[in-house]
């Protein structure tokens, strides 16, 4: 069970208070109408789903109700960092 540092509450809390919301950093296209069905489908459904370092969106559902991002290893489940929306990860698959 994950132990998650909420960047808003500034302390570690139990996974039970959080919900995972999938891959992070997928901005909504600014002009959806300009996209083909294929492109829209990719925005909607197609995901990186990596084995290893993954950036994902979480919400502190039972706590402060704020969304934030997490860099996590999907194999070891280690959480490398959590960071606020709008911020960039410091740990990436490349680094």
């Amino acid at each position, binding site marked *: *069970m994950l*132990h998650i540092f909420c960047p808003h509450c500034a302390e570690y809390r139990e996974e039970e208070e959080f919900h995972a919301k999938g891959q992070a950093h997928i901005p*909504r296209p600014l002009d959806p109408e300009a996209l083909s*069905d294929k492109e*829209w489908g990719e*925005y909607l459904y197609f995901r990186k789903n990596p084995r290893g370092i993954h950036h994902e969106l979480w*919400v502190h559902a039972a706590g402060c109700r704020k969304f934030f991002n997490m860099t996590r290893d999907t194999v*070891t489940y280690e959480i490398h960092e959590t960071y606020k*929306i709008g911020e960039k990860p410091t740990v990436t698959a490349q680094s």
Partner: protein
Amino acid sequence: MNQKNRLQSGGRIDRNQPMSFEFNGQLMVGYQGDTLASALLANGVDVVGRSFKYSRPRGIVTAGADEPNAVVQLGATEATQTPNVRATQQELFDGLVAGSTNGWPSVDNDFMGMVGKIGGSMMPPGFYYKTFMFPQSLWETYETFIRKAAGLGRSSKESDVDVYDRMNQFCDVLVVGAGPAGLCAALAAARGGARVILADEQSEFGGSLLDGKETISGKPADEWINKVVTELEKTEDVLLLPRSTVNGYHDQNFLTIHQRCSDHLSDRAPTNQPRHRMHRVRAKRVILATGAQERPLVFGNNDIPGCMTSTAVSTYINRYGVAPGENLVVMTTNDYGYQAAMDWHDAGRKVSCVVDTRETVTGYVVDAMHERGIRIMTGSAITEVHGSKRVKAVSIAPINEDGSKVVGPAAKWNVDTVASSGGWSPAVHLSCHTGSRPVWNDDIIGFVPGPTVQKQLTAGGINGCYELENVFKEGLGAGKQALKELGLEPTRLMTPKVESHERNPAMALFLVPHRKPMSRAPKQFVDYQNDVTAGGIELACREGFQSIEHVKRYTALGFGTDQGKLGNINGMAIAAQVQNKTLPETGTTVFRPNYTPITFGAIAGRDCGELFDPKRYTAMQPWHVANGALFEDVGQWKRPWYFPKPGESMQAALNRECKATRESVGILDASTLGKIDIQGKDAREFLGRVYTNAWAKLPVGKCRYGLMCGEDGMIFDDGVTSCLGENHFLMTTTTGGAARVLEWLEIYHQTEWPELEVYFNSVTDHWSTMTISGPNSRKLLAELTDADLSNDNFGFMDWKTANVAGVPARIFRISFTGELSYEINVQANYGLHVWEQLFAHGEKYNLTPYGTETMHILRAEKGFIIAGQDTDGAVHPHDLGMSWAVANSKPFSYIGKRGMAREDCVRPDRKQLVGLKTTDPNVVIPEGSQGVFDPKAPIPMPMVGHVTSSYWSENLGHSIAMGLVKGGLSKMGEKVYYPQADGSVIEAEICSPVFLDPKGERQNV
């Protein structure tokens, strides 16, 4: 029975507290401090169970968690029947009732045992994959017989009488195991001021020290243990948990501890006390001091009762004052095995000899044997045991240096007890639960914990460190290391002084050779519970199951309730040997929770029965109950379904509720609808982005219905939103959608459009909502309010604030029934008051409470949809014929717009929602009926959509229905057919879903 194997003195039992118990119907006596196993051995019980496959008689082999055989049924009453209790871990209590789990007519004379003897040779591993195939039709019959043999103990047939508890714990250091290593680690950590939890599965702290006769600093180990435990007890922030098994090690140092609070007292927990408690622990550091488990050796007929591990023999003598036999032979690969011989001899019983598989031994152990006059036979092994329900004799033969061959004739020795020691396997289980693999260590001939990402330290036997002085050092070291990592200051601690011995190197031997090959030798058991033999493992390898995981799955090695604690390493070694591989190449199977099995009750805690899931109530609940409502579960809410009068059928009640509403006035408790208060200058813009319709111009004082879609264009939720102020809105959602919608708004606000100035706050629980509906609703309301309710002043889709029954309220003139309706919202603490006042004035209008079912009928008469019932994840607004609720000219590409425009979403033959009028007006099509255009088509029939809502309409005098029909919106007047399970076909005409008042006049009066 008398306690024929009980020694005159010694042990940690209290001879002043005898306890009587029952085993297989026989009354026996043991003492306080006994386990069920030690008491059975004291009473001379040899056979405690039958093996699973061959039904061989089995006795107690170990004294702890690794016991595979002594698995019994416990319970004096039906409700307390507890299957598969390990007798070696069950403390004796007065009045305990236990029995063997297999064996018919009795464990001693078992019928299946005969079958096992005769048919056993037909039952190699995986035999069932190779047979029972012909004829195909008979498999179910075969299987019925296979199933008859299934299982060990039995489940109770009654609900449990006890409660189980759960507690969330946090600590700096969790120490697992309270042997010498764990006690030292806990002491060091506690002295440094850390928050410590120390858990041990045994009833007393001390670990292996309890089983032997060690002295520490010249005094019995007992004194040292007491001193340490007393200090720990007195230290603040130290939690000591005996009888507590750490059963799972999960990610990020989350562990669960299964504490058996009252299993040692009785079948039933004391009143108000939990039977078990699960501690869910988040530990900053974990110190595993779980020790090591002794491996027995694998030899012919090694399962005959009387064969035990050498530590078990010592433990029964030293801890329980029981010598489970008269005449012992010890077989060992290492110096530790000699301890059993010493203890047995010192207890005044006969040791025939020690069979040491090594070529030579010197030093301390040899001296100790000489002192006692015990013969040592080196370079030899017990190749086979003789006997059936108890060891009668053993064959001892010389073996070669690497233990692979018998090199001389065997001699038969008459003994009744065999103690074997194949060395130690560190208890690495927990360290592997999070995916870490153990690594082989040649020096200690065992697997030790491997690299892990958990914040974990290890000390003592688990590291293969067995010399007591070093164990102490490792324990203290781990405690200090934990402190250091936590930024705490360690204090100086002295390592206790103990006597130590120079030891001979141990020999790596797992399978004792027999003069016959494995396939022909007497059965050499590796995993007792599942009857896995060395020959079975060899066969699996020969058949191509080379991976150790395949071997496990093919033979069931390690599948039992002991999870292979006793047999796995031997089994892996045998698989390696057969395949000419090394043990590290072969590796282990995966260790997983649980360390030992734990009750479902303990895992569930108090979240069962009444507390399984919250029941949510509205403020009017007491009234509903008092007025005979039946309830429908909607999410966690309990909503009135309908309000039958005494003796009234459901349909009659619905007819009455429907008619009363259309003819006069009805009332619905709508408090469960989700409500979200939305404020900010961009609230309006935000609504425009999340709803499909337009919000830019909705004036203050007005309400509007809206549809919400996902990015895929499919309906997500719907509801009415009212403009309370220029920057202030109240959104309502479906009952089930409340939380989902709020999160939906937040996710878009927080991640996509943070620049929009808007705040969302849930006010679902804050407002009680009651809808009065029907031609007389205005008259009724007028009696209770000062507001001007005239149509001119307070029109359809207007809202106003006003007092109702003296309570400030927001009144919304919106309608889900198509009638003149008012939705009254008051603060929930006053909801019941207003509700009661409405009834106080409502009698003359025949004010009738109605529930969700009538609500469904009334809205269906009007063709209003229910999101989630008339829609599923594949329906968009146009499919519903609700294009009017989709604004295509909005500047912002609102959520759902692009999705709805995808190729598949604009197909003309999509399933569309239409009304359905049955040809026979009295027939109500069952909801969920599937429609076809050609009722005579062969199966599989092309289906064109299903009935989503269907009711008897008392108001209209005929049935009404809505359903999805392929291309339905352009098929008005055409027929669609609904074949039923009984072979009948219901014919219906596609029509508008608005069955009543198509112009919408009634709500506008």
